[in-house]
């Protein structure tokens, strides 16, 4: 396998495209130039840092450092899950639910892939474990945040119908089921749409990366299929756990709807 290596100097010309966007923003009074500049600098710093961190991790192949990197990724993902909610669970559970569900789903699916299909030596080899975890986390995070957002907003909007069902003797899960179904559908849809459009509308980033680095397209496709199956499984598991967990937290043992445990809508 051979690939065309890039130097940092090779990136100057493409970076001018971002500068061009900034110039457009100034010219058209979009007021996006600062956002654009900050986002571009963040991207640059984050990716360069990640490059060095991964180089260190690949060189050491330590279970401790690999696990630490994985935990850091999960914590960033759970922070992102919370940040995307219009209404958040109050207190520690706001982060706890997002972190535990992303960890459960992405962790389980990643370990499953490492132990059964990829079987690197050692099984936790960061060259395989971390990129796969990262791809699954990104998608699981989207599913969980969408599911939680639809659930909390749906419960606030449909409070009268949920409480009517409870007042007639339904248990908490039966009463919340219509809203939970909507939440699960919303969480699953991005993955379903991505699977339906992949290859036709877009070539996925990982597959493109492999092809650019010299992997045969058919082999790259196999990897991409594996990743998509893992993403589908991780998203399904994570969204289900998050929606059921949030439904549990937003009710109590006396089968009451507890919207006092949700913060008010953020502007």
């Amino acid at each position, binding site marked *: 396998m051979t690939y065309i290596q890039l130097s940092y100097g090779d990136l100057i010309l493409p970076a001018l495209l971002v500068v061009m966007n900034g110039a457009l923003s100034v010219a058209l009074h979009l007021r996006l130039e600062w956002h654009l500049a900050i986002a571009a600098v963040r991207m640059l710093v984050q990716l360069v840092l990640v490059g060095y961190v991964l180089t260190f991790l690949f060189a050491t192949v330590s279970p401790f450092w690999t696990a630490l990197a994985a935990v850091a990724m999960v914590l960033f993902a759970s922070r992102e899950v919370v940040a995307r909610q219009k209404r958040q669970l109050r207190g520690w559970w706001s982060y706890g639910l997002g972190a535990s569900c992303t960890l459960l789903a992405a962790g389980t699916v990643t370990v499953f892939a490492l132990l059964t299909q990829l079987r690197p030596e050692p099984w936790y080899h960061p060259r395989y474990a971390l990129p796969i975890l990262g791809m699954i986390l990104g998608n699981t995070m989207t599913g969980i945040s969408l599911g939680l957002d639809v659930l909390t907003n749906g419960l606030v909007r*449909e409070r009268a*119908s949920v409480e*009517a069902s409870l007042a007639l003797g339904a*248990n908490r899960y039966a009463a919340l089921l219509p809203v939970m179904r909507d939440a699960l559908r919303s969480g699953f849809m991005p993955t379903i749409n991505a699977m339906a459009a992949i290859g036709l509308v877009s070539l996925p980033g990982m597959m493109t990366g492999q092809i650019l680095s010299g992997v045969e397209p058919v082999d790259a496709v196999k990897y991409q299929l594996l990743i998509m199956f893992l993403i589908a499984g991780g998203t399904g598991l994570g969204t289900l756990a998050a929606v059921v967990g949030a439904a549990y937290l937003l009710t109590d043992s006396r089968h009451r709807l507890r919207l006092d445990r949700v913060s008010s809508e953020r502007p």
Partner: protein
Amino acid sequence: MLSVQSLSRLHICASFELHRGECIALQGPSGVGKTVLLRAIADLDPNTGIVKLDGVLRESMPAPAWRRQVTYLAAEPGWWADTVQDHFKAWADAVPLVEKLGLAGSCGTWSVRRLSTGEKQRLGLVRALMLNSRVLLLDEPTSSLDAESTRVVETMIADRVSAGTSVIWITHDDAQARRVASRQLMMNGGGQLEEQSP
């Protein structure tokens, strides 16, 4: 039958007894806490105090079982499915009550979205009555109804009371309170209950 002792939720604190086959009218200015009290009895909101049905403590049974015996009906009942009949376990059994309330027996297939406020209120009442609860907690059950429908609802509830069902009925209408209830409780601004003399 229903015993409420020092039931406390937000600013309200209430104690009273409701006997078998008795209807109490609960009155008081808007916002004073009448709905809060009924919801607390049904255990729909966190509350403290002792509530018993025939001497059996509310907390000794699962909340869904309690609510099937002590059923709260909101002034604007909620709907969770698309059609009317989806909200009933046995729609065919509900049809006689539905027709008695002046609605078409075929309304089971109607979309909930096309129902008027009054139709929703009558169907919500039928839905609650189908449980054959021992205690009904009615929150202004005729607030959106015309005089004729109100009369039918009052007769229907009176029949249930005669058969042994106990009822707490929130109303702002003094005349209705006198018609339907044998006792009247007035809630004051402090959330306390006072017995009204007939």
